[in-house]
């Protein structure tokens, strides 16, 4: 069943100064599914992810050709409100990065930035986000404790909750389990499976195995090029491109 594309990347090239990070990438990312961008380091996965929420706007000396459409509309359109784009397209970083605030204040941070100050309403948002990120039961009795007192795995699920509190449409995850133990990793992968019912998820997995475990769709990126993409089941078992096959077989990368 072909689902409608949530994000459409069209002929995208991207440069950091003179270095080309992305080379004519075209890709469509289906709604309410998990898409994995995988490949060796330096392939442009993180760059692509950071373009989806325009976080790379913060960097100097970059240049872009091509376009990215979200629900059919360019995210680079002049006059587009970047803060509301970032609320629609949330991001979880490689390292758990709770702000030095309480658990509650971390989760309500995004809604409060957006102007929501009703305590009752915020409490509801916080509870729902923490439940959806499967961490509510562990923290419900200490919402006012510092977020930095949580374990690494809990911190990362808190960061997922913090993104969910924005009620985004897309969730970007950049190697979200790279610093975590196998059990925490498994819990996060489980919650992703639950979350894809409501959200479009794009993940840069931290290993091919993780890509194979979680991905509905997969895209193999190599040195800024999108080598091939397709349903995960097909791509991981019968890759079309020789380079993909070599990578999956562990011949490089």
């Amino acid at each position: 069943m072909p689902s409608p594309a949530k994000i459409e990347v069209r002929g995208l090239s991207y440069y950091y100064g003179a270095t080309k990070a992305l080379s004519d990438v075209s890709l469509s990312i289906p709604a309410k599914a998990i898409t994995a961008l995988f490949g060796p380091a330096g392939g442009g996965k993180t760059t692509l992810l950071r373009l989806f929420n325009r976080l790379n706007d913060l960097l100097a000396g970059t240049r872009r050709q091509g376009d990215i459409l979200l629900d059919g509309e360019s995210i680079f359109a002049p006059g587009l409100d970047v803060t509301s784009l970032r609320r629609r397209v949330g991001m979880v970083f490689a390292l758990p990065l709770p702000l030095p605030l309480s658990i509650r204040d971390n989760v309500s941070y995004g809604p409060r930035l957006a102007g929501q100050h009703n305590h009752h309403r915020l409490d509801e948002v916080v509870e729902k986000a923490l439940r959806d990120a499967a961490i509510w039961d562990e923290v419900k009795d200490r919402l006012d404790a510092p977020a930095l007192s949580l374990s690494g795995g809990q911190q990362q699920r808190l960061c997922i909750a913090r993104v969910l509190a924005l009620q985004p449409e897309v969730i970007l995850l950049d190697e979200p389990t790279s610093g975590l133990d196998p059990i925490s990793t498994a819990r996060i992968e489980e919650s992703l499976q639950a979350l894809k019912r409501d959200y479009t998820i794009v993940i840069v997995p931290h290993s091919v195995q993780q890509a194979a475990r979680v991905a509905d769709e997969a895209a193999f990126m190599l040195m800024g090029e999108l080598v091939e993409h397709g349903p995960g089941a097909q791509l991981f078992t019968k890759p079309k491109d020789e380079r993909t096959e070599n990578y999956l077989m562990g011949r490089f990368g």
Partner: protein
Amino acid sequence: MLRRWGIGPKQTGKIAAAIVWMAAILTLLLLAFILVYVLWNGLPQLSLSFLFGNPTNMGRSGGIWPMIVSTAFLSVLSVLIATPVGVATAIYLTEYTREGRLTRIIRFGTEALAGIPSIIFGLFGFVFFVIYLGLGWSVLSGALTLSIMILPTIVRTAEEAILTVPRPYREVSFSLGATRWQVVTTVVLPGALPGIVTGIILGLGRTVGETAAVILTAGSALHMPHSLFSPARTMAVHFYILAREGISDANAWGTGAVLLISILLINVLINQAVQRLASRRMVR
């Protein structure tokens, strides 16, 4: 070189340890000596009538209450003027612009300003605020001059404090839909607060202890300042005049002791306030 005298790395280490230890002790002794010397000479002069009385006979007798009030008035006012400007400049340099010609000019300017002797600020304040703007010898002229004098300190300490806030925090904040200003108010300033306050304390200390720039801009009137436009004599200036003109050594030392104690008190109180603020932020 040392090797030739038969001194190996172990001995070198011991000698180095002894030297740094002695340097530290020397510093401590010097500080303690000055502190004890001032308090030894000054404390016997202190009494309620000295602290809360008006000076009589040009300060030969009587108290220093107007000087205490003038010092507080002038210092607090200059910090109130310099802090918003200084912190805003630091925010501009770190958050709102990329390194370029303008930031280099601002940095060079603040560094140059930091190295100028205070009397030059005094002269500028005298020519510009006192004469040209017609503010006269007044608390306002003095505070404006002192605020320019401490501006570089506040800009540089605030900038350093802001740069210690980890960059990923900013990215997290942006990624959750913060505007640049929201990033500044929710992540950057709270993280940089202790460092910013340190800069403010340094600035406050300089204004409390300043004489040359104050005499030229706030004057040295003995009476209580009753508005921004009154001339005023701070404790440091009072001390200077009493000692320089041989009016009263005893009262000079008394003033010195009060000056010293108030600076110590400011440091302790503000540090405590910052710690309370920082810990409350963590809990809430």
